[in-house]
């Protein structure tokens, strides 16, 4: 519907230009073929955290209406990610040494610094394909597939949904189902849950060069290095998880200016839900690190989502407000409020401020560290993303439509995460150190539609 409308605007504009120039419009001649044209929606995004991760992501989305609302959408996404990622280990009043995921290298973390693996690097390609068409009177069906590949991760999924218009097309009921199979093949193998990270007593003992398959031959006869290497060789390789998602929704036109949507989503994951690179420190009552373990998360998770969105058409813009409540059986609850206010500056351009406020509670097994005087729990993770946290996004977008009907837009956003202490007493030296550092990120995106 919108695709045809876009094409029509483009054609009309082109025809008007040609009429002014006194030439014959090819676009006008091609008017009947509009529904056969591909529509491209492209974007490039930069996401950069201060002193941590940075990401460049490119998207090309192509849509074609093959007639009578038989619509195909194909999308390719590329991203490249570099930089440091928080490991979950606590900072200390002295230098700390950690092994890299492969075990071949090691890195040092300075006094008072949050341990980060600064060699973190990944690239990803994702392909999505979706087909949508009418399947009966006032009823549409849609089916799609996706595949996403990273160096150590493969995700494949299928989805299907139906939507039915009732009440003279003022109400739409929808239901969807998706199944996703993920496989992770961690660098260095899969560490056992809550097993100790093998850390060599000196950085010089490491093989050093992660990219060098030949290794550092000097270490071959070193018994400490041999034992270290063996612990990595004994690890299991790839792990799997599967996820089933159900999404049901109702969309209701309220009046000439207002449309509202309410969704309920259920998501059930089973399998390997750990992050194999995340750590948790074991500390003494003085806050001194005694050991560094790999985290352990439960192997199933059930999530519930409730999402409400309202859009209101002003004379010169659109108000878009949404709220999401999410909870799961890891005891995480979150609230998200989001608003986009679009103001039309002219017929061709708009400006759109964006605000997103997010708050989550901690998973029941989240702990910033373990005490060496306590029994080891079955599950523990110090990943700040599973801890209590507030976050805010502030952004602005400017978009413009060109005379040839193509459109471009640019948006700049600031995203800040503020992890909170969910009631853990920090003993000894940890009381003086920042266990919950804020993460600040800049997002810049450029879109082009043609």
């Amino acid at each position, binding site marked *: 519907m919108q695709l045809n409308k876009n094409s029509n605007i483009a054609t009309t504009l082109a025809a008007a230009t040609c009429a002014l120039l006194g030439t014959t419009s090819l676009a006008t001649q091609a008017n009947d073929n509009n529904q056969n044209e591909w529509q491209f929606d492209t974007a490039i995004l930069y996401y950069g955290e201060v002193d941590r991760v940075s990401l460049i992501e490119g*998207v090309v989305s192509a849509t074609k209406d093959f007639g009578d609302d038989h619509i195909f959408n194909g999308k390719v996404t590329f991203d490249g990610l570099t930089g440091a990622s928080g490991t979950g280990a606590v900072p200390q009043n002295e230098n700390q040494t950690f092994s890299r995921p492969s075990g071949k290298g090691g890195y040092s973390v300075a006094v008072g610094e949050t341990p980060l693996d600064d060699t973190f690097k990944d690239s990803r390609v994702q392909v999505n394909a979706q087909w949508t068409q009418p399947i009966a009177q006032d009823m549409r069906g849609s089916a799609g597939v996706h595949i996403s590949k990273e160096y150590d991760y493969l*995700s494949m999924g299928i989805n299907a949904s139906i939507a039915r218009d009732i009440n003279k097309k003022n109400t739409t009921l929808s239901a969807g189902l998706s199944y996703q199979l*993920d496989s992770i093949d961690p660098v260095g193998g899969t560490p056992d849950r809550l097993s100790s990270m093998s850390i060599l007593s000196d950085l010089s003992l490491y093989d050093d060069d992660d990219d060098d398959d030949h290794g550092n031959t000097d270490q071959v006869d070193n018994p400490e290095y041999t034992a270290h290497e063996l612990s990595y060789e004994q690890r299991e390789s790839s792990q799997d998880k599967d996820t089933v998602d159900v999404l049901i929704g109702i969309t209701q036109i309220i009046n000439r200016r207002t449309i509202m949507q309410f969704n309920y989503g259920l998501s059930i994951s089973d399998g390997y839900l750990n992050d194999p690179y995340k750590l948790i420190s074991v500390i003494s009552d003085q806050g001194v690190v005694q050991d560094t373990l790999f985290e352990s998360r439960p192997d199933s998770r059930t999530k519930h989502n409730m*999402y409400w969105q309202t859009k209101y058409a002003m004379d010169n813009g659109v108000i878009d407000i949404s709220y999401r409540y*999410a909870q799961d059986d890891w005891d995480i609850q979150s609230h998200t409020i989001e608003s986009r206010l679009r103001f039309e500056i002219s017929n061709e351009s708009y400006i759109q401020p964006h605000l997103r406020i997010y708050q989550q509670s901690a998973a029941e097994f989240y702990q910033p560290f373990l005490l060496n005087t306590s029994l080891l729990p079955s599950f523990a993770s110090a990943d700040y993303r599973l801890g209590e946290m507030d976050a805010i996004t502030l952004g602005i977008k400017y978009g413009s439509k060109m005379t040839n009907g193509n459109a471009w837009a640019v948006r700049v956003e600031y995203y800040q995460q503020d992890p909170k202490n969910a009631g853990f007493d920090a003993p000894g030296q940890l009381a003086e150190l920042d266990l919950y550092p804020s993460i600040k990120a800049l997002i810049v995106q450029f879109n082009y539609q043609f």
Partner: protein
Amino acid sequence: MKKIAKLTVVGIIITQVAGCASLGVKPWERDLLAKESMSLSAEGVDLALDDHIYFSKEATSGGRAFAGGGCGCN
């Protein structure tokens, strides 16, 4: 407490659906709703990129779309 919350939500949905019959517009009143910017899936590329960022950085995901994520993204 959870039961009461669930019943309340179910109650809200039922009353919303029942109330839907009196809501809505006539076909000739769809001029504003037909604008691309009023579509619930407007700016789909932006929304998907945002979903990817927040899926990677926060503990909860989904709502508008499936929660699965479709990537490792750690």
